[in-house]
């Protein structure tokens, strides 16, 4: 990957070989552009950080201040005890739903992805298309049916029901990306392992798993983030405030006449930070993973 990109600019820029001084200067110009690009994409989150440190009167002040006149880091403590929403429970819900949803999606997707990648059978394409179609429906339109179903099963307004919903709606991505990763491993490698006396489980664990590991990491993190940020279904299916995830809880601070923006921003940053850290961990896989997942 690096060797590829390393040489790309020089091949595009004629003449070759590039003069050292010119190349160097040009790259720093690009860095300057890069800084501007970065600022554009960070802008809302910088506003968020600054806003989260303002006092309630100051954040509603007309005209607004760019930087806080007084800094209020205690907002990050106080936001956990507000009449609007039980934030501690909300964070816990988000964590439980995301972990559960990711685990379930992976458990359901891996066998299906492996089998469809390795075997041809009559219903293979219909199955894969069915999986793809689930991606086109969205939880909002299915909410009334889901609500009824969960009432019948005694699961309504539970975290487990949201684990099921999240797992199902992320299954499509998980199956397709793992399908292409499994396909990317030549059958011969697996067969060689069997010839060498490996059982199916052994070859799975020692040969396949390490080879498709980048795919699994990508799938896990993508699914986790999608579950973490899910909003529409929770909004409709979880009426009890202690069950609601952070994304829904957040909206409680925004009132029609009076909003506690400093808490909105504090909660948002708490919600955004872990996913950004997770995401940055797979930044390298991201480029390779997306190619394998969609393009191959």
């Amino acid at each position, binding site marked *: 990957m690096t060797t590829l990109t390393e040489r790309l600019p020089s091949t595009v820029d004629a003449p070759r070989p590039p003069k050292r001084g010119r190349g160097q200067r040009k790259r720093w110009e690009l860095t300057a552009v890069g800084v501007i690009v*970065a600022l554009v*994409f960070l802008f809302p989150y910088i506003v968020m950080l600054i806003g989260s440190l303002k006092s309630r009167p100051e954040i509603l002040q007309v005209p607004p201040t760019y930087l806080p006149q007084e800094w209020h880091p205690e907002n990050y403590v106080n936001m956990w005890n507000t009449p609007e929403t039980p934030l501690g429970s909300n964070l816990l819900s988000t964590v439980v739903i995301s972990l559960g949803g990711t685990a379930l999606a992976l458990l359901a997707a891996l066998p299906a992805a492996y089998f469809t990648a390795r075997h041809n059978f*009559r219903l293979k394409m219909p199955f894969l298309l069915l999986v793809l179609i689930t991606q086109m429906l969205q939880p909002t339109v299915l909410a009334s049916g889901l609500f009824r179903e969960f009432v019948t099963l005694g699961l309504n307004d539970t975290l487990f029901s949201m684990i099921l919903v999240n797992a199902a709606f992320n299954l499509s991505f998980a199956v397709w990306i793992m399908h292409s990763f499994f396909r990317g491993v030549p059958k011969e490698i697996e067969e060689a392992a069997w010839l060498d006396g490996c059982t199916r489980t052994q070859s799975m664990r020692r040969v396949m798993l390490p080879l498709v590991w980048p795919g699994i990491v990508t799938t896990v993190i993508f699914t986790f983030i999608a579950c973490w940020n899910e909003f529409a279904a929770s909004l409709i299916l979880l009426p009890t405030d202690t069950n609601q995830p952070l994304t829904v809880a957040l909206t409680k601070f925004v009132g029609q006449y009076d909003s506690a923006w400093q808490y909105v921003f504090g909660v948002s940053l708490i919600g955004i930070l872990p996913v950004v850290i997770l995401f940055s961990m797979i930044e390298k896989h991201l480029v390779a993973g997306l190619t394998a997942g969609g393009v191959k």
Partner: protein
Amino acid sequence: MSDAPSTVDVKPRKRKARRETTLQALPWLAPALILIGGVVIYPAGYMIYTSFRDITRFGTDRGWAGWTNYEAVFNLAHLPKVFLNTGVWVVGVVAVSIALSMVLAQFLNKRFPGRRVVRLVIIVPWAASVVMTSTIFVYGLDPFYGIINRLLTDVGLISEPYGFLKNATAGFFSAAAVAVFVSVPFTTFVILSGLQTISDDTLEAAQIDGASRTQTYWQVVFPMLRPALAVATIINVINVFNSLPILRTMTGAIPGYDADTTTTLTFKIIQADRQIDTASALSVINFLVVLVVIGVYLRVVRPMRED
């Protein structure tokens, strides 16, 4: 279409084996099938069923309704406007996102000091919850205490703070801008991954053949990006079409339906009007539209072919 790829590489003697594999497949596919069946197929079936029933605001089923719910949908006075909005929303947001992402991906594919940091930063709007990102714009665009309004005034782009989210048209386009903002990171990374599949040799060959940089891009790089662009388009169309949080957060408070897409309209019919039956009919129409759009796209571009 669905059978074509698998039949190509199967030799006749393997046909019988294929039939047996279908049975073998069941345990492997079962978990996925159960999940899809329970959480997607059943409610989808229920949605189709209720779209033909007469259901009261309190959930009582008063029997068969024929096509009356569909008639009710098509008789909504604001429906043409909502359909128009939906078209503008999907085509506009996806097209602008892809155009911007192509430029950005090209830039991030160049090597420069700090590139990794810029790539990481671009991930932030992708990782962040869309509700959270939209909320910050609701605050920032407020005509009184909004910081974006102050910034735009101080820079001189507008002469006085403007209530971007106070009228439907401005609100709709502000929301579209936010939708582009949150779609660009993913799209950029998909295109970036496409760019990395293009080898140096290809580009060198083009250069040796005397192609200019513009020619190289449009005649060599761009065609090779086709699969990546196809993936980016499909996923963006589905996501943007189904997007609820941005419009709900940013224009949900505006009265009327001038800033609604079919998705937010469905939500309003469920939440505010409590007409489950009409909402179901609209959802069915909605789903068919996505299906047709994606189907046509797959037929024309064929990104899924396995060669």
